[in-house]
């Protein structure tokens, strides 16, 4: 299979945001003319994922492929079994933690801002502010630049590098929270409500459902910033990733394992337990003292969502852009065309139309609607 550098040569040149790169491409499999490409010739959806024909690579493919560029390590974007993977160092590290060291035959690291030539197509990774190591991927050829933003957010997050807007011709945006009803409040105010509930119900264990990569570490980091210094109990599914975050210099304070057998129905009164959302209201919680279920998610903006899940304390905390962030980001990229993927595409397409921006849904398959 591949040996050496499957992703081709590197360049120290940084992409400048305002002037499209005018370099001559080295010859790839087929020679690229200088005629401006149509965007769909540079990137288009295939059943495996978003495909770049001239560079012969996929972005976040949902099935095993030859060459994959991965925006971030969440399971629906980063799958095991590709021949070669190009991603940020943190994303590669987390994939290794989750899938074992053989998750791909070869791996190559992309630093933020560095440009890499793939068969005449120049790609570069830029911070997406979603989780540790998350990136937007800029793909450029013949003066046309498309940015696939993966999942992203604009609210500040102490556990990852902040989003950097990249000017482009076509912006591919997620739309997980692509409805005007989704406006995420200040994260500190949300964790303050959790800390207040701990004081109001000190006899109850507060079980916080949070996605094990990113959200869990972010909420712990926010609790620490909010002055909560007591040990936090964590579910086994969070242990490796949290330790990795700590190894990257992110302050999470004292974490203790929540998954021990003894103490049926009496453990962790007045303490915070962080666990994957799937355990909320499940048998796993029976070991704790009168568990109070807390769910940290952008979906908690909708009361019925909280009610359906039996959540007593919903915290509106998301690693995805809310409506205002989505629309502001589209404007900042200066894109004349927007492709909308996973989520509520139709409302964001409508907003683009109202604002004179060409837009269409991309209809990618395989990404979880509930990827919170």
């Amino acid at each position: 299979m591949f040996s050496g550098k499957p992703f081709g040569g590197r360049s120290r040149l940084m992409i400048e945001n305002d002037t499209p790169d005018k370099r001559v491409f080295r010859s790839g499999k087929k020679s690229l003319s200088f005629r401006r490409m149509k965007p769909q010739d540079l990137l288009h959806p295939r059943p495996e994922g978003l495909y770049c024909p001239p560079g012969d690579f996929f972005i976040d493919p949902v099935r095993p492929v030859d060459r994959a560029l991965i925006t971030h390590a969440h399971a629906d974007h980063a799958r095991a079994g590709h021949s070669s993977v190009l991603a940020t160092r943190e994303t590669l590290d987390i994939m290794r933690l989750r899938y074992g060291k053989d998750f791909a035959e070869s791996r190559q690291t992309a630093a933020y801002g560095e440009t890499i030539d793939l068969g005449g197509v120049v790609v570069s990774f830029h911070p997406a502010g979603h989780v540790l190591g998350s990136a937007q991927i800029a793909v450029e050829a013949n003066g046309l630049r498309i940015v696939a933003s993966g999942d992203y957010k604009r609210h500040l997050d102490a556990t990852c590098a902040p989003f950097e807007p990249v000017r482009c011709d076509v912006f591919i945006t997620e739309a997980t929270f692509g409805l005007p009803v989704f406006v995420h409040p200040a994260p500190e105010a949300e964790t303050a409500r959790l800390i207040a509930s701990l004081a109001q119900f000190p006899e109850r264990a507060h079980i916080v459902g949070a996605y094990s990569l990113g959200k869990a570490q972010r909420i712990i980091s926010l609790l620490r910033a909010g002055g909560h210094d007591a040990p936090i109990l964590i579910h086994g599914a969070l242990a490796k990733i949290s330790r990795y975050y700590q190894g990257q210099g992110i302050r999470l304070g004292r974490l203790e394992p929540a998954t021990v057998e003894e103490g049926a129905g009496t453990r962790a009164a007045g303490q915070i337990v962080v666990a994957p959302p799937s355990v909320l209201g499940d048998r796993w919680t029976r070991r704790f003292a009168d568990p109070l279920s807390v769910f940290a998610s952008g979906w908690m903006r909708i009361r019925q969502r909280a009610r359906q899940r039996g959540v007593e304390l919903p915290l509106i905390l998301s690693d995805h852009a809310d409506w205002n962030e989505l629309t502001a980001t589209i404007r900042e990229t200066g894109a004349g065309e927007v492709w909308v993927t996973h989520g509520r595409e139709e409302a964001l397409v409508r907003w683009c139309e109202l604002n004179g921006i060409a837009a269409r849904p991309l209809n990618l398959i395989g990404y979880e609607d509930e990827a919170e």
Partner: protein
Amino acid sequence: MRRFSELLDRLVLTPSRNGKLRLLTDYFAGVPDPDRGHALAALTGGLDFPSVKPAMLRALVMERMDEVLFAYSYDYVGDLAETISLVWPAPESVDEVEAPALGHVVETLSRVSRSDAPTVIAGLLDRLDPSARFALIKLATGGMRIGVSARLAKQALAALGGRDVGEIEELWHGLEQPYETLFAWLEGRAGKPESAARALFRPVMLAHPVGEGDLERLDPAEYVAEWKWDGIRVQAVSEGGVKRLYSRTGDDISGAFPDLVAAFGGDVALDGELLVGDPIVRTGSFSDLQQRLNRKTVSKRMLADYPVFMRCYDLLHWEGEDLRQRAFEERRAVLEKVVPALDRHRFDLSPLVAFSRWDELDGLRRDPPHPVIEGVMLKRRDAVYSPGRPKGPWFKWKRDPFIVDAVLMYAQRGHGKRSSYYSDYTFGVWAGAEDDLQLVPVGKAYFGFTDEELKLIDKYVRDNTVERFGPVRSVRAEPGHGLVLEVAFEGLNRSTRHKSGVAMRFPRISRLRWDKPAAEADRIETLTALLAE
């Protein structure tokens, strides 16, 4: 407004009664007058703002956003008030603008005219965060459904002041919003509010169920017995020209029963059972009575088809005298003079049931002469009328429940402490030919079993799941394989809403029949036969 909207958000998601009480008590203790008093009025259904209508709110938001984006949003959220509160274009953080206090909002809403309402409401919405916007809309349109009864709010007040809830119920209808004198008394800053109001509620006296061995210690000669009528407990009070009909918990339900209220007067406080029918002709069933319950207003047709009357069994006040400290027999003697003087189609006397031995009464209890009787009441002859549930003076001795063997069909996750268990069970009985048995669901029950039994059923449900629909699992239930539940219930009503045509009253699981083959559970005909009675 923020503290109030936070309270509403927490209450609606808190399943346990004690949790709700804690939230309410902390709120009342921590929020100053007059806001807490306005909140109390909102929670007890005491606010009404006729100038604000949902259609107006919708029009307001449409002036401010694209209608397609609104339609997508409303379609997703499903609740108009919530959608408007979420999409309203206002600063997400309102710290910089001084957010209006609840008291200001209530006063503004109560003064505003219909023509000014749109501008005023928009001005308020602009200054509130999304949660407070939701509270405002619910407040203004009168649609607070937050799972808190007026009684629970009063219990939180009782906890706040270390008082008995009966004291608060007794005062309640003489108090004025925003209840500053009430809070002053509860916090020990002033005496008990004196009230000049008339026709107040008197907290009711309740009975204990007859327990194992209770009667062996009691002398039958010290007690009188009455039938226990299956209606709703009411109190009819008339004083100084003011007439009120109260529920058991002191809610004023006069508006729903104008026919009864019109039929009494004078200076009296009667305690009794509200029933449907005409005491001279017939007493209607509980399902007839249900036609009249939970209505704010009542149509002429309803008044004619389902007239109500009151079967009186106690007298608390008569001609300027509070009778509650007098013995039951003395009160009863006055009652027997008072009731016959009232409208005979609207009031009658609950008859005494003669007996001399407990086993004799037991026979009567098991086989009552009328289907609307659900057992007997025992009242000690010398007992004063003491509010609450004192042990000893009053007992209720109910008819044995009906029993049916049904098969578990669906199980749903419980709430609160039981959210990790499948604890709500839908069960069915057999219908169809012997060689083609089908289960028809006949009811749902979520208590009656012990914690140990719950664990066993939970395991059974998980091991025998056929399909999952969100929080519900359908459980394998066939003639050759299924879990038989013995279900106890108080009665059966006809129902057009249920496929089986019957609805059980107060069903609960009385036994788990692990031993019984599913095919031997009861058939629907067993239940429909009960209806024919």
